[in-house]
């Protein structure tokens, strides 16, 4: 029970003070879970991050659920997930009550001319940072450029094409490629083996 309470407070704090979503939360969650409370080891937290990145849904939620489960099973995951979402839920709910009136104020519309430009810059630089870390082989680069080009084109021409389709097509191509690679390595192994047998004979 005590662990659950500490877990609740720790994730409440993480939810309240990390701005900028999932990736911004990684160093904070490490400091709390590994260094402060010794709930998980360095290796375990790296596994949590890797899995949170490759499963759907907000990263902060994925990490909270996983860490909570590792510490205290199902109830741990429930407590961590709810407490990490609670601060932003309360803040945004309050904002939602007056945002539209607020956005109608003259100087607020001026502020948002600047803010919208800043958001575009933040998104583009986040993308550029991700390109740096990307594997630069033919297929990922082609997929990235095709998606970028097509989605801008469709958006500009108001042609509806759901982002979900891009993701499903990308995933499908990825599966085909892994099948092909598997097939090729199996074939190569077979050829190699045949060669070895012939040499022996």
């Amino acid at each position: 029970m005590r662990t659950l309470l500490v877990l609740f407070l720790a994730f409440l704090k993480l939810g309240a003070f990390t701005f900028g979503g999932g990736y911004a939360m990684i160093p904070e969650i490490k400091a709390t879970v590994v260094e402060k409370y010794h709930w998980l080891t360095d290796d375990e937290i790296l596994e949590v991050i890797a899995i949170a990145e490759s499963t759907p849904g907000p990263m902060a939620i994925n990490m909270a659920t996983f860490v909570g489960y590792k510490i205290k099973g199902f109830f741990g995951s429930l407590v961590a997930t709810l407490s990490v979402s609670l601060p932003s839920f309360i803040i945004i709910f309050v904002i939602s009550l007056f945002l539209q009136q607020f956005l109608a104020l003259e100087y607020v519309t001026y502020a948002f001319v600047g803010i919208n430009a800043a958001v575009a810059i933040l998104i583009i630089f986040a993308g550029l940072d991700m390109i740096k870390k990307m594997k630069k082989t033919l297929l990922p680069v082609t997929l990235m450029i095709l998606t970028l080009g097509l989605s801008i084109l469709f958006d500009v021409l108001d042609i509806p094409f759901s982002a979900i389709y891009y993701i499903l097509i990308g995933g499908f191509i990825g599966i085909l490629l892994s099948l092909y690679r598997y097939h090729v390595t199996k074939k190569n192994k077979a050829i190699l083996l045949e060669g070895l047998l012939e040499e022996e004979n």
Partner: protein
Amino acid sequence: MIYLLLLLEFMKIGVFTFGGGYAMIPIVKETVLTHNWMSESEFYDFIGVCESTPGPIAVNIATYVGSTQGGILGSIVATIGIILPSFIIILLIASILKHFLKNKYVQGFLSGIKPVVLGLILSAGITLFLKNIGYENSTTFHISYASLICFGILLLIMIIWRYGFKKKMNTVVFILLSAAIGIGVCALMKYGFGLSIQ
């Protein structure tokens, strides 16, 4: 039945957003626009609000749309909707499907998704830039000089900060700065030079 619709639509977003943060912008945008839950400009304004409040953007949008469409109950239902798929998937992986992510087909699927998500993120940024500076559709383009000037100033600050000082820009500071620059540029254009904003 608005509550059921909110729950299902946000669950769908929860299932199809890989990579978190900006990666969910295109899917959330098409969902809220299709149902007329938000206008496009309101959506982008709200992303700006999300940048300066804590918590995941996807959860913030769920709470906001839920609240404007269905009050407190709506916001609870929508927030649960966006959390639930993650919660279930992670629980399954942590408990019984420990090797699920090591499966070669799952690996293949993920390796195909990553570059697509990256393309979608960059396109979201570039589209937002185009809409900001006045692009409406293939026949209407009223250039917004106020927006263009703000964009130029902010880009310069970002580049100097990143490549000159080699520091990471704090998002909240950058948003607050951009609000001040927006007010300064627009007020100067309107009251200083008597130009209209837009």
